[in-house]
C-alpha cells in the first residue's frame, strides 16, 4: 500500500472545480514536484490533503488510514506538515519559540520542546537566527524558518507551497539543499509546489502537473519537460513553437502573456 493515496479527489467552490477528480499516490521518502499555472488548484490540493478544506468527494488514505474527514490539527498529529504560500509573520514569538510551538505537539515539557527546536534549527543551519523575530529576517531566511516550524511537529509527509518564490539564484540553491537534506537525511516524504522550473526539475524524482483543477501529466522530470500537453498548458504554445527547446526560467512570464 502506498504511503499517501489520493483517490478521485474533487473540490468545488460554488461552480468552480478547483480540484477535478485528482488521483495519485506517493511512496515513503519520495520527493515529488507539483506544478501548473496559477489557479490550477495546487494550493487547494494541499489544503484538501491537510484537512484545511473539507473535500467535495474522493478519498485520501495516509499510511493505510482513511483520513478524508479529519481536521487540520488531527492531520498534523498523524504526521502531515505543511507550509503556506503566504505567511506574514507577526507576533512576538522568536524563531526558536515559533519552532517550539510545533515541537509542543508531542511533549508538554518546555525543555524537551526547546531541545527539539534547537536540533531542527541547527540541522537547517538557522541556529544563529534563534532569537530574532521572523519579521526581522530577510525573505530567504523566513522561508527556511517556515520549513523549520513545520518540521517541529515531526512530520512524515511535508507539503511545501512555493518556498522558493521571490528568492534569487543562490538563495534558491540554498533552500533546495535544505529540502533535499530534509528528504534524504531526515527521511521526510516531500511534495513540492514550485514555479521555479530549474528547482523542480532538479530535485524531484517525479512530477505531477495540474491544469484547470485536473491532473494532466505525471512522470519523471525529463519526460514531463517534453510532454506536449504540459508545454501547451504551462510553458505556452507560442513559446514552445518559437524555441523548440524549453527554457524553464522564463516559462512563467510566457504563460502569463498567453492567459
Amino acid at each position, binding site marked *: 500500500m502506498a504511503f499517501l493515496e489520493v483517490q478521485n479527489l474533487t473540490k468545488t467552490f460554488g461552480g468552480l472545480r478547483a480540484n477535478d477528480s485528482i488521483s495519485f499516490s506517493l511512496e515513503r521518502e519520495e520527493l515529488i514536484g507539483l506544478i501548473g499555472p496559477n489557479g490550477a488548484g495546487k494550493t487547494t490540493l494541499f489544503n484538501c490533503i491537510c484537512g484545511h478544506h473539507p473535500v467535495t468527494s474522493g478519498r485520501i488514505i495516509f499510511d493505510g488510514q482513511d483520513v478524508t474527514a479529519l481536521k487540520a490539527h488531527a492531520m*498534523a498529529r498523524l504526521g502531515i506538515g505543511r507550509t503556506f504560500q503566504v*505567511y506574514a509573520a507577526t507576533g512576538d514569538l522568536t524563531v526558536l519559540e*515559533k519552532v517550539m*510551538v510545533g515541537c509542543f505537539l508531542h511533549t508538554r515539557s518546555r525543555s524537551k520542546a526547546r531541545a527539539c527546536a534547537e536540533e531542527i534549527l541547527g540541522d537547517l543551519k538557522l541556529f544563529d537566527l534563534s532569537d530574532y523575530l521572523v519579521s526581522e529576517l530577510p525573505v530567504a531566511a523566513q522561508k527556511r524558518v517556515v520549513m523549520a516550524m513545520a518540521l517541529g511537529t515531526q512530520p512524515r509527509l511535508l507539503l511545501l507551497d512555493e518556498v522558493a518564490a521571490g528568492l534569487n539564484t543562490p538563495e534558491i540553491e540554498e533552500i533546495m539543499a535544505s529540502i533535499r537534506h530534509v528528504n534524504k537525511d531526515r527521511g521526510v516524504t516531500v511534495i513540492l509546489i514550485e514555479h521555479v522550473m530549474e528547482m523542480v526539475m532538479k530535485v524531484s524524482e517525479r512530477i505531477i502537473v495540474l491544469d484547470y483543477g485536473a491532473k494532466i501529466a505525471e512522470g519523471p522530470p525529463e519526460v514531463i519537460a517534453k510532454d506536449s500537453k504540459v508545454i501547451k498548458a504551462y510553458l505556452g504554445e507560442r513559446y514552445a513553437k518559437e524555441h523548440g527547446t524549453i527554457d524553464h526560467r522564463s516559462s512563467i512570464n510566457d504563460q502569463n502573456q498567453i492567459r
Partner: protein
Amino acid sequence: METLKNAVDFSDFPRIDLVIAGAVAFLFLIFPLFSASSFAMATMIQFFMFSLYGMGWNTIGGYGGQVDLGKAQYVGIGAYTTAVMLLRWDIPFWVSMPVGMGIAVIWSFIIGYPLFRLKGHYFAIATIATSLVLKDLFTVWSFVGAARGLEISPITYPPPDYMRLIFKEDIYYYYLILGFFFLGLLYMNWFRKSRLGFQLRCIKDNEDMARSLGINVHWAKIKTYAIATAFVSMVGSFHVCYIKVIEPVDIMSLDLSILIALMAMLGGAGSLWGPIIGAGVLIPLRSYLKEWLGAAAGLVGIDLIFYALIIMIVSAFEPRGIWGIVEKVRRRKRR
C-alpha cells in the same frame, strides 16, 4: 517540578527589568509600614485586584488575541458565590472561593463553546452580551438579593475573621491580596512559556498556521478562557469580602469589563508586565481623579474622558501598549 522551575524563571528578561521588579516588589511589601493614609491603602488594594483581573484577561485577550469585554460576569459569579454562601449558610471564603471558581469555569465552558465559533468584533460583542444578560438575571433573582444586592455586615462577624475574610483594618486585606498578586504573577510567568501559552500566541499570529502545527484552535481558546475565568472569579470572591456590598449594576457592569480590558491593553496586552503597568497607571489615576474632582467627575464622566485620551495616545504610538513601546525601543537599540 519543571513547572515550578518555569514559574520562578524570569531569566529571559534583561537584568534591569528584574532589578526594577525586585525593588517594586520590596516597596509593595513595606508600603503599609509607611503609609498612614487609608486612601492610599485602598488605592493599592484596588491596584492589586485590578492587576489580577488584568492578568486573567491577558491570558485569552492578550496572549490569545481574543478581545474579551465580558469579564465582569465572572467577577460577579465569584463575588456572588462567596457572598451568598456566607450569608445563607455561613460558609467561609476559603471554601466558597474555589466553589465560585468552579461555577465560573462551568459557565465559561457553556458560553465559550459557541462564542469561540465567532471571530474578532463578533466575539467581543458576544462577550458583552452574555455578561449583560447575566447581570439582568441577577437583577431580578431574589435568591441573590435581586437589584438591591447583598451586604456583608462586619458586625455579624467580629473581625479579624480569617476564615470569612472580615477585617477592620485594610492592612489585612493588603497583605492577603499582595499574596494573591505574587502567586498570580508566578502563574502568569509559567503560563506564557507553557505549551498552552505558546499555542495561544501562535493562534493569535495565524490560526491556519496554528492548525497546521497540530493545535486544536477551538479547544485551546476554550481552555484558556476557563483559566482567565478562574482567575477573575477568584479575585471577585476577594472583592466582595473587601467592599462588603455588591449590586449587580456595579459588579457586573460593562464599565468594569471595559476597565479590565483597557488596563491590560494600555499596559501591554500579551506581555507579563502589561496588566500591572496598566493597573498602576489607571487605578491611581481613577482614584485621584475622583478625589480631586469630587462627585462631579462621575457625573460628567471626566474620568472616562481621561482614559479615552490615554488610550488614544498610546494606541497612536504602539498598539501593544506601554510595554510594547519599551520593547520597540529595546529592539531598535540592539541593532
